[in-house]
C-alpha cells in the first residue's frame, strides 16, 4: 500500500454540465445576509498556480484549471478536479491577465474528482 502523495503536474477541469453548475453555485447575496461583501455568481475559467505551502511536509500541490463559481471582495468559490487543503496559498490567474493571491479556507468533495473550495483573498479587492 502506497503512503506518499505524488503530485500531478497539471489537473484539468472535471467535465462540467448544467446540473453541476447549478449544484455548486452558492446562493447570491440577499439584503438579509450578514456578509461583509455582496457575492455574485459567475462561471469564468481560471488557472490556479500553487505556492508550495506544505512543502516542508513533503507535499507538492499541482497547478489546476478551475472554474470560478462566485466572487466577492473578500473571497471566491472555485470548482476544480483536485483536492486543495486549508491554509494553502495560490495565485489565481484570470484570463484578463489579472492575478489574485488567495488562501484556501475549506474544501469539500462534491463528486468523484470534483471539489468545491472556498478561499479568502490575501488582499481585499
Amino acid at each position, binding site marked *: 500500500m502506497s503512503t506518499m502523495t505524488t503530485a500531478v503536474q497539471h489537473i484539468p477541469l472535471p467535465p462540467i454540465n448544467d446540473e453541476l453548475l447549478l449544484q455548486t453555485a452558492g446562493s447570491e447575496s440577499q439584503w438579509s445576509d450578514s456578509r461583509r461583501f455582496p457575492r455574485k455568481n459567475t462561471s469564468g475559467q481560471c488557472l490556479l498556480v500553487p505556492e508550495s505551502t*506544505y512543502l516542508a511536509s513533503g507535499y507538492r500541490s499541482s497547478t489546476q484549471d478551475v472554474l470560478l463559481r462566485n466572487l466577492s471582495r473578500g473571497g471566491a468559490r472555485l470548482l476544480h478536479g483536485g483536492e486543495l487543503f486549508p491554509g494553502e496559498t495560490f495565485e489565481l490567474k484570470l484570463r484578463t491577465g489579472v492575478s489574485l493571491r488567495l488562501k484556501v479556507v475549506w474544501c469539500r468533495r462534491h463528486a468523484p474528482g470534483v471539489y468545491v473550495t472556498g478561499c479568502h483573498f490575501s488582499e481585499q479587492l
Partner: protein
Amino acid sequence: MISSFVDSPVHFKTPTAPGRQRYLAVPVAILLGLPKLRCDLYMQHAISTEKILYRSHQIDLPIAADDHLLNGNVRHLFLRVEDEHLYEAAVQNTLAASPVDPGLLLTLSIEHRRTAFQAALISNSVAPLVEACGQLAQELMPAIQQDDFCVSKVVGLLTHDHCTFQHSCNVAIYSSALAKRAGIDNPELELLATGGLLHDIGKRHIPGFILRKPGKLTQRERELVRNHPKSGFLELGSLGKLNWNQLMMVYQHHEWLNGGGYPVGNAGEEIHLWARICAIADVFDALTANRPYRQSGYTDQALQIMNDEAGHFDSELLQLWNEVVKR
C-alpha cells in the same frame, strides 16, 4: 503533575477551594505493576466526594498482593498531590528495570511522559507538544515491536478517562499495531505513532464541557467538534515538523470510506492509508472506552459494531484489525 486532578469531574484546570486536600488519580493497572510505592493511597468514598484511606505507606507489601484490587472493579486509586514525586520515581524505577511485560511497558511509558504531555498541552505553542509526542512514540516502539505484543491484553490495561491525552495514547498504540500488521515498519511506524498521538490536537480549541457533554450537541457545538481535524491540520501544517502522512492522519481521520465523513467527504483511496488506519483505531477506542456518553464496551462488541458499519472503514484494514484484536 503526573496525572489529572480528579477531585471534580473536570481536570487540571479546575480551581480548587483554598486549603482543600488535592488528589491525583492513578490507574490501578499501573499501581499493580509498581513493586514498591511508599505513599498513602486513597479510595473514592462510595457516596460522598471525600477520599478515604485505602492503604498506608507503612505497609511494606507490593500492591499486587491486594486481592481487593485484583478482583474488584476499582480502576483508580488516589494519592496526595504532594506525594506525586514518589509515584513518578516508582514509575521510573520500574521502567528502568527490565524485562517488563509489553502491556505494562506501554502504560508505564505513557505515565512517564504524562507530565511533559500535559504541560505541553496547556502551553500556547504546539511545538513542545509535537516534541513530547515524538518522544513518547519512541518509547512506545519497543513494546509494540515485540513479537508477543497482544492488543486484546493491552485493551484491559489501558485506562480511559475523559481527557484527550489518554485517548490519543490509545489511538497511537492501536494504529501502530494495525500498521505493523499491514506491513509498515520502523522508522515509519514511529512516525505513525506520533501522528496517532497528535490526531486530535484540534480538540484543544473545543471547550471541555462540549467534549464531555453526554447529551446531544447543538448545531453550533457540532460545528465546533467537526472543525477539529481542520484546525489541527492547520496548526501542525504551519509548524513544518510533521510529514504529509502524519498530517493526513490529523486531517482525514473522520473521513469514511463511503464518502460520508468530514471535513471533505473523501471516499475510498482518496483517503490516505494512514488516516484509514487511524480511523479504525479511533473508533475502536471510542467504542471500548468508558466515556461519559457511552457505557463500557467489550472488544467483541466493538468489533461487531465496526464490522456492521463496514462502509465506514477500509475493509482490508478492518479484516486485519479483527485478526490483530482476536489474536
